[in-house]
């Protein structure tokens, strides 16, 4: 890409220091700063959700009651773990942080289409988080899925928590809407659709799902709320409601939502592998179409969460077959990533290590998904630890590893500093080893029939549970280490980052690190797609 090089010295003014003080951050409309606001918020909840996970794992290390004497407390812990991690951490996860920061930079815009709306979304997110915080006074114990009729009968503050989820969803809608308009209207001259980096494509597909699926769960939660407060008779079987309908409507959003989490991570991996392999992304258009296809298909597979939930056999069969449709574009992506490395010149910087681990973990996540899409086996695996492990491989092994990879990759751009590579690699080893140690045993537990959301379990499952708990602590230490390393580098790091430390061709690296408030001092002209690495095979130009 022959984008205008824009790294000229601008007397040290950048988006971080052109205005100072807390107030300038709280009133900023700069997408880069808002991305950071989101980042700080979600990492806080990641930490909190992680603490609940570790509390649960500690309790489960041995059969019987250990640190938690009352099962109700355990039930609260897994509910809060789910709510925090899903609604407050990983849904805003990559799109609202990296997406906000990178999207305008990558398409050569000065900001998102609606900067004030962007700030507003963050405030809505904060309001949702505060509401969820108030719900902790009488914490809900329904699981993050809020299944009726238990959520109608539970004495805990389900109302406040579902209202919080609704508000958080509204924030998500506004972010998605903003991104769609930005990508449609604000691309730099020459930035055609097929010159967009795959991260932008991933974010676009995500934004479509965010905008169009979130209202469904929002309304469903409002109906649940109405059911609780007024008893309108929509989900309550005592009033003629069908609780399975709640599951349908809930999963209509909550299945696509896993693609909200993971599609941007796909994009991140698609950015990292070419840069560190010095090769064009293999099959760029196939990768793009796969993203769009996944987003499309994600809307019609929801009932695979419900094969044994009391839906009809016919419905189960239809949705099983549709579900296999997701497998194909996902497989295409994996093949393309791996092929990109073929004949490359590969450096093992930390982001690349995470990308390689991502492919490995996502292979396991994807293939274990086949068991759950296949009817005969899903009957056995549904609601066992197998599902728990599969889900964590996709979301933690996929989305969270993707986020951590992105944080390392774009850290020089965001902070203008370099992090300590050795410490980052140690954290990487801890994360990957700890993660596999946590969740591989859970696959085996699931195969042996261990049901999920159990406070206590028969003694024969103990060994694997103990291993899983040890892994969880290693994993937790790994994430803390990785994030502290980055935080330390951002605050006290001495090594200044060059504009383009990894020699990437995409637009965000063509401006200084950290970028100026306006992103680019001159409007960039784009003449090629961002993966034109390597020696041309022929002399034909793009």
């Amino acid at each position, binding site marked *: 890409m022959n984008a205008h090089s824009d790294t000229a010295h601008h007397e040290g003014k950048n988006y971080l220091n052109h205005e100072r003080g807390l107030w300038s951050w709280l009133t900023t409309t700069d997408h880069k700063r808002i991305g950071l606001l989101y980042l700080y918020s979600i990492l806080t909840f990641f930490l909190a959700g992680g603490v609940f996970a570790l509390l649960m794992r500690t309790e489960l290390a041995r059969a019987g009651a250990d640190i938690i004497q009352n099962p109700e407390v355990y039930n609260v812990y897994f509910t809060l773990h789910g709510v925090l991690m899903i609604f407050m951490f990983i849904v805003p996860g990559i799109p609202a942080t990296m997406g906000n920061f990178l999207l305008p930079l990558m398409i050569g815009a000065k900001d998102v289409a609606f900067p004030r709306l962007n700030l507003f979304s963050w405030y809505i997110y904060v309001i949702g988080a505060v509401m969820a915080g108030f719900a902790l006074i009488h914490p809900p114990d329904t699981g993050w899925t809020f299944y009726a009729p238990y959520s109608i009968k539970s004495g805990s503050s389900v109302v406040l928590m579902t209202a919080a989820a609704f508000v958080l969803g509204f924030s998500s809608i506004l972010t998605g809407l903003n991104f769609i308009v930005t990508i449609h209207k604000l691309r730099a001259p020459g*930035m055609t659709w097929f010159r967009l980096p795959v991260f932008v494509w991933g974010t676009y597909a995500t934004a479509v799902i965010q905008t*169009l699926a979130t209202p469904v769960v929002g309304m469903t939660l409002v109906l649940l709320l109405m059911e609780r407060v007024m008893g309108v008779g929509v989900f309550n079987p005592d009033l*003629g409601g069908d609780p399975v309908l709640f599951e349908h409507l809930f999963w*209509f959003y909550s299945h696509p939502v896993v693609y909200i989490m993971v599609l941007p991570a796909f994009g991140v991996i698609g950015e990292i592998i070419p840069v560190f392999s010095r090769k064009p992304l293999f099959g760029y258009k196939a990768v793009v179409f796969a993203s769009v296809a996944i987003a499309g298909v994600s809307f019609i597979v*929801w009932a695979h969460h419900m094969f044994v939930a009391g*839906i*009809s*056999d*016919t419905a189960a069969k239809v949705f099983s077959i549709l579900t296999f449709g997701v497998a194909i574009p996902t497989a295409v992506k994996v093949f393309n990533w791996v092929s990109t490395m073929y004949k490359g010149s590969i450096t093992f910087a930390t982001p690349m290590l995470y990308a390689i681990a991502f492919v490995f973990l996502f292979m396991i996540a994807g293939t274990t998904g086949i068991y759950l899409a296949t009817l005969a086996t899903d009957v056995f695996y549904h609601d066992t630890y197998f599902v728990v492990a599969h889900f964590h491989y996709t979301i933690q092994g996929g989305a969270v590893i993707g986020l951590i990879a992105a944080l390392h990759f774009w850290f020089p751009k965001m902070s203008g500093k370099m992090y300590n590579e050795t410490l980052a690699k140690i954290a990487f080893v801890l994360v990957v080893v700890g993660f596999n140690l946590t969740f591989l045993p859970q696959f085996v537990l699931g195969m042996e029939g261990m049901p999920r959301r159990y406070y206590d379990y028969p003694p024969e499952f103990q060994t694997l549970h103990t291993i899983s708990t040890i892994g969880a602590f290693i994993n937790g230490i790994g994430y803390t280490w990785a994030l502290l390393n980055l935080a330390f580098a951002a605050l006290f790091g001495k090594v200044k980052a060059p504009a383009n430390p990894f020699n990437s061709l995409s637009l965000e690296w063509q401006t200084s690190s950290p970028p100026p408030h306006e992103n680019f001092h001159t409007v960039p002209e784009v003449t090629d797609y961002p993966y034109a690495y390597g020696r041309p095979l022929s002399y034909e130009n793009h």
Partner: protein
Amino acid sequence: MAHNSHSSHAADHSELGHIIPFAVYRNVLIILLILTIITVAVSRVDFGVLNIVVAMAIASVKAGIVAAYFMHLKYENPIIWIYVLFPIILLFLMMGGIFVDNPTRRDPKIYYEVPAATENQSATNH
């Protein structure tokens, strides 16, 4: 493709929205009111199962007219068309998925009166 023109000067009028003559708005309102009356009138006639289909068809014509003229959809960019059609398709997918399920259940019934444990035997399935 992208409407990102380099000039920041006041734009040419035609680049903004389309202007529709007053008569069109007036006629549209009249048609809408007539269709409302037709809806009510038609609901007096019993078409059996088709009652709801007829009612929804008329409503869709009305909605289409409102969208096309009042909301200027007729003159809009195709991308807006896509984002109008998308949620409607999703609505049908949602309904479709759920209608594949409930009516085909073995015992597609919600029992208002609780069958007590001892009476479960009477609830046979087919």
